[in-house]
């Protein structure tokens, strides 16, 4: 993709703000027990998905793990549909049937939301296989965390992806912790990107706190893949500000470490760049933030007022009977 085709950066900043405010509000609603199950927040990692999605076409496939709210929002799923899903409502992006960890939006080529660590990497191979089978030039973006790289399905999938030269960008969102286990305690390698080398997949390290760096690297790799299908691996270094899930106080890391990353916040960074370049005033930023907050507040109201599926409907979703729901 050429720079001229890229999304407007102010809009992308607005998207990062929307994700941030959405997650803050989701956290609050979880504590208020409006949201059930597990809830994993994306705060701190916004530049990764927004940067990556900004660099590809709308019909490229994206697939991710369970920390998926940001991925759906970045792809354009409405805050209403996302919040309603967390509330388990019929207006949610999977009708309240998937919940926080299983967001899907077929229309926007968001292929989930997968909660068994590493198990969606073979699915990504399948999506990319399908593109190649149909001679389409789509690219599959497969997001996963640093916790996935020691799982068997990840390794089997990487071998298949490399063997069949499938058009996948493997995006490891390395936030340094698999749940509470630091990468240094889980992974034998000094750097995660070296996993790719074992499969002869070209790899690179990207600063995940920089929207521009993520976007430019993904754009460069995607352009190369569209010319000639092949995989690529990006270790995107990022940080999640919150615990693994809502029940995790994250006592396995220091306050100082968290503060260090917060000072390098991806939203603050892009804002500063745009301000410096005269593309964004403080007033404009405040207006963007206000709008994000309002959108999210409205989504809570929407979710609260939405209906649930009637219980007997569960039988409609065990088997597909030929009629799309």
């Amino acid at each position, binding site marked *: 993709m050429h720079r001229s085709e890229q999304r407007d950066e102010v809009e992308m900043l607005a998207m990062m703000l929307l994700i941030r405010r959405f997650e803050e509000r989701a956290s609050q609603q979880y504590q208020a027990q409006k949201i059930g199950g597990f809830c994993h927040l994306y705060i701190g990692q916004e530049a990764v998905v927004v940067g990556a999605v900004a660099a590809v076409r709308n019909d490229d496939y994206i697939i991710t793990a369970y920390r998926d709210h940001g991925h759906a929002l970045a792809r354009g799923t409405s805050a209403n549909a996302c919040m309603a899903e967390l509330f388990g409502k019929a207006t949610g992006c999977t009708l309240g049937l998937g919940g926080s960890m299983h967001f899907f939006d077929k229309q926007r080529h968001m292929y989930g939301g997968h909660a068994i660590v590493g198990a969606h990497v073979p699915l990504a191979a399948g999506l990319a296989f399908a593109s190649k089978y149909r001679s389409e030039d789509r690219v599959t973006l497969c997001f996963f965390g640093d916790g996935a790289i020691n799982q068997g399905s990840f390794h089997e999938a990487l071998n*298949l992806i490399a*063997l069949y030269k499938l058009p996948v960008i493997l995006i490891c969102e390395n936030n340094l912790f698999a749940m509470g286990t630091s990468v240094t305690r889980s992974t034998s390698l000094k750097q995660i990107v070296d996993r790719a080398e074992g499969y002869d997949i070209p790899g690179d390290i990207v600063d995940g706190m920089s929207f521009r760096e993520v976007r430019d690297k993904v754009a460069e790799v995607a352009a190369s893949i569209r010319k000639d299908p092949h995989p690529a691996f990006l270790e995107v270094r990022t940080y999640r500000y919150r615990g693994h899930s809502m029940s995790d106080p994250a006592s396995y890391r220091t306050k100082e470490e968290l503060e260090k990353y917060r000072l390098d916040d991806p939203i603050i960074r892009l804002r500063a760049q745009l301000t410096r370049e005269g593309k964004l005033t403080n007033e404009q930023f405040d207006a963007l933030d206000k709008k994000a907050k309002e959108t999210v507040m409205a989504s809570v109201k929407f979710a609260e007022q939405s209906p649930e599926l009637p219980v007997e409907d569960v039988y409609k979703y065990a088997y597909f009977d030929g009629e799309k729901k």
Partner: protein
Amino acid sequence: MREITYRQALNEALAEELERDPNVFLMGEEVAEYHGAYKVSQGLLERFGPKRIIDTPISENGFAGLGVGAAMTGLRPIIEFMTWSFSLVAFDQVVNNAPNMFMMSGGQFNIPITFRGPNGPAHQLAATHSHATENFYASVPGLKVCTPATPRDAKGLLKTAVRDDNPVLVLEAELLYSSKGMVESPDEELLIPLGQAEVKREGSDVSIICYAQTVPLALTVAAQLEEQDISAEIVDLRSIKPLDEEAIYKSISKTHRVVIVEQDRPFCGVGAEVCYRIQKDIFDELDAPILRVSQEDVPTPYNEKLEKFVLPNADKLMSAVKRICYA
């Protein structure tokens, strides 16, 4: 009609579905250049090319998942497991991804995939290679499971499986691959619906409910029983899920006695479910307790004599039938 082997029947089913629908492809270990570990895919690479007949590394979890992902986009993968015993390393993909996707995605993604291969004990392959997996998989909502016992059923059920819009498991049987039977000629479309049992032999004194490898066993025993003036009706389930309760009940309403002979284990086996349903729905039709013949509740031994003892066999079935017929 002409006589062909179970293996040829499966091969015809694959070829016809590959021919009919460009979205269908076959993937698995040794399916292409080796023509299948059991030669089921003989000639398909030459006919359909490497784009659609795809060899994989030994990587069941990986290629099963690849199939599920491809199915999310509307392709119709046929994934071959060299044996269903090896599917256990792909259990997560078969159990967690394929059947859950439709519900989890709120009905946005159905998974039109067929998983197939030989299932159940063969001959002296010992514990790791002898799993009868039907009861594991039939317990999972979202999966359909069929177990063809004859060439005709193998062809008709596999073709139906490929056209189904849900994940369907076709559990074949290694020991049946060379067995022969009458099958419609290739110019006749043969589709056998899932969830439809078939009476393989009419009888009046006792119903023997069976499937897969226990069908020829039951037919052999029925012939021996005939000599002793016991008329056995053989009901081949053909599909484990959905289960054809109606056909089971119809037969029992005629004979009032039933033995279930299954190739899996006794604890939580298929027969346990069938037995539960019979007593729940047609208790008054029974003139004797329901008996089950299955494997012994032990891992399968290698030694031929011991293996024969562990598996369901003619002696066990014969004595079960005689016990409930008070013969």
